[in-house]
């Protein structure tokens, strides 16, 4: 980097000990004091070089001298690859930081670590009460409760990562200011914290769905690659939001509203793959493009894939599971037209959504899942790395 706007003054040399007169306070004139940082004041004569040995040139050549001795600007960003290696080298710090924070999180609550399990349970209970019992939006979705709880737990992972990482840089300001380390460790640590929470809430989830009579199948192992991709996607989100949130408090204020909108649009509570898109009276039936966009949004992709892996009822009612059958698909969309009694619909016809044409196929969902993960992680990494030297200011 060069010194822009510097007047080239003659190189002046000050040996140690040869100083300006003792007790001489500087001129308290124009450039001092707040509010006077004008361009002219900045472009003043280069300052005298203090404490320098004989070999140090003055004025313009001081930066050259620094470079000759392999000194780098204090606020220099390491190259991206080196930064990645530095992060990998700090992996013990990242996981240790996450585990310790997780243990300390509920240390002041009387129920302590029990909250790690209670929080997801209460979350599921609230949504079940409102949407399952009071509002009856379960129409058109078989086994609505397991559908709902799975969706909430999966979405909660991404949601928590986004919200916590938006304040990560400001929460850890003392650490950032005190010790030199690659700042990317912190958002990564927060993702690990939420991943550990996710493992616990998935334990709860398995108990709930087994209690509801869901059989254990080999499909369950599909959640491993899906969660891996979702985690990678969350890493990207965490990097992006950590940088945005480091500058302004406005981001973390606005975020809950954005995320709630995202949740409703991702089919956590309603099915955007079946009922909303396949029933003629529902909102998405005549807007296939919108339905497509909603179904390929990353949260919806991961939620749908995990539901199809864990829940048999979801897997066998996924559009495209059976070959297209216009009559059966139509029966699902408009049972009244075919005079289907409610109990027959609930036990049999509700699964006929699998005879409809899928808007996004199961294979395409896997493709999008991998795509979103890679795109988010790469963009997030570079976006965060770009501002590496700016964290901790303020």
């Amino acid at each position, binding site marked *: 980097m060069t010194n822009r706007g510097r007047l080239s003054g003659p190189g002046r040399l000050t040996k140690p000990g040869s100083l300006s007169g003792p007790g001489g306070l500087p001129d308290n004139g124009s450039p001092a004091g707040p509010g006077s940082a004008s361009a002219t004041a900045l472009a003043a004569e280069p300052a005298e070089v*203090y404490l320098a040995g004989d070999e140090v040139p003055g004025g313009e050549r001081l930066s050259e001298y620094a470079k000759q001795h392999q000194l780098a600007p*204090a606020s220099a960003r390491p190259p991206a690859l080196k930064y990645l290696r530095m992060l990998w080298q700090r992996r013990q710090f990242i996981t240790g930081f996450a585990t310790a924070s997780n243990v300390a999180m509920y240390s002041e609550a009387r129920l302590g670590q029990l909250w790690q399990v209670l929080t997801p349970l209460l979350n599921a209970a609230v949504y079940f009460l409102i949407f399952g019992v009071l509002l009856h939006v379960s129409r058109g979705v078989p086994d609505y409760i397991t559908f709902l709880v799975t969706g909430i737990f999966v979405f909660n992972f991404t949601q928590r990562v986004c919200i916590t990482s938006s304040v990560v840089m400001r929460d850890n300001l003392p650490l950032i200011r005190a010790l030199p380390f690659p700042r990317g460790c912190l958002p990564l640590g927060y993702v690990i914290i939420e991943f550990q929470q996710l493992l616990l809430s998935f334990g709860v989830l398995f108990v709930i769905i087994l209690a509801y009579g869901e059989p254990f199948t080999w499909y369950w192992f599909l959640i491993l690659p899906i969660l891996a991709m979702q985690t990678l996607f969350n890493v990207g989100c965490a990097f992006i939001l950590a940088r945005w949130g480091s500058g302004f408090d406005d981001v973390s204020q606005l975020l809950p509203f954005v995320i709630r909108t995202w949740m409703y649009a991702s089919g956590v509570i309603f099915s955007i793959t079946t009922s909303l898109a396949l029933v003629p009276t529902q909102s998405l039936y005549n807007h296939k493009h919108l339905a497509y966009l909603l179904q390929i949004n990353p949260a919806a992709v991961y939620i749908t894939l995990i539901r199809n892996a864990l829940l048999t009822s979801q897997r066998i009612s996924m559009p495209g599971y059976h070959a297209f059958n216009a009559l059966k698909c139509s029966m699902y969309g408009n049972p009244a037209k075919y005079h289907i009694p409610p109990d027959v619909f609930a036990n049999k016809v509700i699964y006929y959504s699998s005879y409809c044409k899928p808007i996004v196929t199961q294979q395409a969902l896997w493709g999008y899942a991998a795509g979103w993960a890679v795109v988010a992680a790469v963009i997030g990494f570079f976006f965060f790395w770009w501002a590496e030297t700016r964290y901790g200011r303020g």
Partner: protein
Amino acid sequence: MAEPMVVVDDLHVVYRVYGSGADKGTAATALLRMVKRQRRPSIREVHAIQGMSFVAYKGDAVGVIGRNGSGKSTLLRAIAGLLPPEQGMVYTQGHAALLGVNAALLENLTGEKNVILGCLAMGMSPQTVKERYQSIVDFSGVGDFINLAMKTYSSGMGSRLRFAIASAKNQDILLVDEALATGDAEFRIKSHQRIDELRAHAGTVFLVAHNLGEIEETCNKVIWIEKGRIVQAGENVLEIIDAYLTATGGEPRVREPK
């Protein structure tokens, strides 16, 4: 030939301070301002460092003195790379650790976790951390408090532990901003020894302190700054400190002849 560790080349630092004075700070005024597309009136610019150039070498302990608000902390934060230069540049060999007066690193975690995680963050291997753990804890002298959350520490204990952690690695550059002020006499002696060790390991230490005796004992060079500019700097530590005391209306220090 001495090797430079820090080269400060005609450094200017300008702060932008938000939310001071004029703004009434109500939602209505904020909205009006956005509608009128005005800048926030409350942003004020403070020209905190107004052109400084100096060089610090391996093994130097540089004391920085000056009145409150003269730019001492700003200078240290600029060397740590935490403040962008408005003009000029700070060049360093390696990264700097900055110890300020804030109480904790990870305040919700125990002292033990702070030691382990702090060392890992600085890039030590888990093996090294295990080896050095006990010596760090002993050095800090916090005793049984090591198992309590760091937010429960007194300011003295907090700064002892943080100093112990940050100096556990032979830092290239250690910036100490009044972090030793809250320590007791015993800790001050220990920290001086540690700073001497760092200097012997070719590290460079910057020390900001209002306790001028501390600067005298620890530093081989001193920089006196006023209003963002260097007034005097050099190896004649005692002379400069006396000149500073005279200028601020105090008496020269009485010293025991050595």
